[in-house]
């Protein structure tokens, strides 16, 4: 309902249908070491996450096995040894209290964290795109309705929904999926607004009119004419949303609505680590550092994709070429 929100945060302005996005991105990447590094970091992370069982097998560690002998029970369960109990067996030390192997837990945690963040983003994008297109192409009333629904979703606190959903779904419903649902359902407003604005702008373009004139149905127009042009801004937004969702997952875990034990996630590790940062700094620094690096990588990549897909980038201060927009 807020009209000028229609120019959303990271909207790359008017729909600028970039031609040949793939090669552009690749070309862009080649010239930019930071983006290349970000891509490499993310690829490595995904690889490590995928290979978690294998790596666990290689190190001979079970992420859930307790090692009571590795912690000092009388002192709150702080790991014995230095740097959080780093040893030949436990490359990154062990978890206070339980003595579980941190290296494997972080690996397994990456699976959940990445899965939840990417999944939630996918859901947000799917819902947001559907809602945005419907709002733009549907009747005025429908647009209003979706605007209202967005407001409802913004105002509905995540925890209320999380707890309610936790209750409705059966206990053996996978938690990561539930988190994806909670985050995805609540936070699609931004995408919807972006897509709505872009669609409205695109709708007036002649090629959409031409498609109409050829007798295409609305659905077909949305699918064949609009979606491809929406891809660039939406992909950009999505890349920037992934890290945000990671932090949200961490916060939900902190409030006790996260993944189920013994499954680790970075967020859940961080939240249980928060009190340990003086007694066992390694325990906090590891998940925090990983989260930070991932967020950094996603953000750099997201910014990169945006610049690569925005044809006006690189010609930011372009002079005397108003014509291309005056049409």
């Amino acid at each position: 309902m807020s009209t000028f929100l229609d120019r959303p945060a990271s909207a790359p302005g008017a729909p600028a249908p970039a031609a040949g996005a793939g090669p552009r991105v690749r070309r862009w990447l080649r010239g930019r070491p930071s983006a290349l590094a970000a891509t490499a970091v993310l690829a490595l992370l995904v690889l490590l996450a995928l290979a978690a069982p294998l790596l666990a097998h290689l190190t001979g560690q079970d992420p859930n096995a307790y090692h009571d002998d590795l912690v000092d029970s009388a002192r709150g369960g702080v790991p014995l040894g230095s740097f959080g109990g780093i040893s030949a067996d436990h490359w990154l030390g062990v978890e206070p209290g339980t003595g579980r192997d941190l290296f494997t837990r972080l690996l397994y945690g990456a699976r959940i964290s990445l899965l939840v963040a990417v999944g939630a983003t996918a859901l947000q994008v799917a819902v947001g795109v559907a809602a945005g297109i419907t709002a733009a192409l549907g009747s005025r009333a429908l647009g209003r309705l979706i605007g209202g629904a967005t407001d409802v979703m913004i105002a509905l606190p995540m925890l209320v929904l999380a707890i309610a959903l936790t209750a409705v779904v059966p206990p053996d419903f996978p938690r990561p999926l539930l988190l994806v649902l909670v985050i995805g359902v609540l936070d699609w407003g931004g995408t919807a607004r972006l897509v709505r604005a872009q669609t409205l702008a695109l709708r007036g373009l002649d090629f959409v009119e031409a498609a109409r004139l050829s007798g295409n149905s609305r659905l077909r127009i949305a699918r064949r004419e609009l979606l491809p042009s929406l891809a660039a801004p939406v992909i950009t937004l999505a890349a920037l949303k992934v890290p945000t969702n990671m932090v949200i997952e961490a916060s939900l875990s902190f409030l006790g609505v996260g993944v189920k034990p013994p499954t680790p996630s970075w967020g859940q590790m961080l939240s249980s680590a928060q009190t340990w940062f003086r007694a066992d700094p390694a325990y906090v620094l590891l998940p925090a550092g990983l989260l930070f690096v991932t967020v950094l990588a996603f953000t750099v990549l997201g910014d990169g994709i945006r610049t690569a897909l925005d044809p006006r980038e690189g010609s930011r201060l372009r002079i005397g070429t108003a014509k291309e927009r005056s049409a």
Partner: protein
Amino acid sequence: GPKDAAGGSGGESSGKPGAAGAPQKGGTLTVLNNEPQNDFDPARLYTSGGGNVPSLVFRTLTTRNREDGPAGAKVVPDLATDLGKPNADATEWTYTLKDGLKYEDGSPITTADIKYGIERSFAAELSGGAPYLRDWLVGGETYEGPYKDGGKGLDSIVVPDAKTIVFKLRKPEGEFPFLATQTQFAPVPKAKDTGVKYEEHPVSSGPYKVVKNTGDGETLLLERNENWDPKTDEERKAYPDRIDVRSGLDAAVINQRLSTSSGPDAAAVTTDTNLGPAELAQIGDNKELASRVGTGHFGYINYLAFNPKVAPFDNPKVRQAISYAINRTSVVNAAGGSALAEPATTFLPEREAFGYTAYDHFPAGKTGNPAKAKEILKEAGYPDGLTVTLTHSNAQNRQTGPETATAVQQALAAAGITVKLEGLEANAFNERRWDAKNTPGFFLSRWGADWPSGGPFLAPIYDGRQIVTNGSNYNHAQLNDPAVNAEIDEIAKLTDLAAAGKRWGALDKKIGEQALAVPLFHPVYKRLVGKDVKNVVISDWTGVLDISQVAVK
């Protein structure tokens, strides 16, 4: 009762925690708490032994003995001259008030006000207290409180004169003096009763009165009640002039503030926040900090509960196998390590007041006995192990939460028992475990005593008549053994508490043979105080630092 927080006594520790020197009057005591005093109405409070901050404002017929350690588990007179005079079969208890008792406004405290205070705790608007009055007083089960009784009152509380009050019980209750410590026994002048608004400014009978109460108990300011006569009160010391309660604080922040002890925090204590394992590890070898840590024990048990109506837990051998397999070291570590939890093999806490009698029917050693467990499983007909579901709470409370559950999971895995975890949101978890019709087969549970005796510990858990089918049921095993029921009744008749204790201990040991629960650990509470705080007294009643004893000068 289940709602009680935690605390403990400095029994074993050498030297009293806190600053040295004789305590003196004066100064402001700051209380840094996590939970706001949302309920400040004596009718609604459910606190064992008279409570913490409320005990500064409410005096009751009896109260807990404000001393360190085991001595603190005794009940002593407060408003009353003695612990009450029972009739022959302990179904009638008579109390007489001390002389010179006054409210904060100088008006005298009468037994009629105590009767009224108890009656109003029956009102639905003021629910929240312990169930005993309703269960014990004649006519209690149907009484709906003074707002709906047309002025008739509850007949089983008789007030022959302003100083005497008589309670008529449905059955013998030798532990009535313990009950009389609860805040429902605080006097409430009928004229001052403002219903649900009474908690905003409850009329004080204790050493302090409420000067400010904002944010529904989030911040409280208490000042001296000049009409409180120390001569009538041997228990409360009331050294500080003012008590400034700040709540709603994060636990980590409370402990950090106490440890930093800067400014007003030097004269600060907390009544509801323990030191966590990380903080304990951090204190480590810091002598100064360690000297400010008090240790408390509370009659509390964390255990694995079975519902023998659910297969395979209907098979005693399965329950025994699990008892053998449990690794209490892992569990204790999950609970915060040996400083914060003591492994338990008995249901009753290891305190004389509860009637503790040692036993270990299914010895698992320190780290479990998987071999023996496997053997028993084979006998039970599960030579290849089995898969069970353990229900637990998602709350990160280090008791019924995921940490303990995964420790159990790991221990049982060694014995060939695969444990699937069913974590529920805190409310859902409680609803499940208290729902007699739908109790899970195998779950984490806990129980705390309403007063230091075996009675409130064993009766709600194992008395077959206390199985509640459409309310909160604590008899998880739904044990209804006539012999047990009869023994509970017999012990209740005893007014000699020491004798009663021995019989509770014996009963515990007897029930333990059935392996209806696997005792896991008794928590230990570590509490930090500000650097200027003196006279730290922690009784074994609740393990709570006694706020009425501390001095800041």
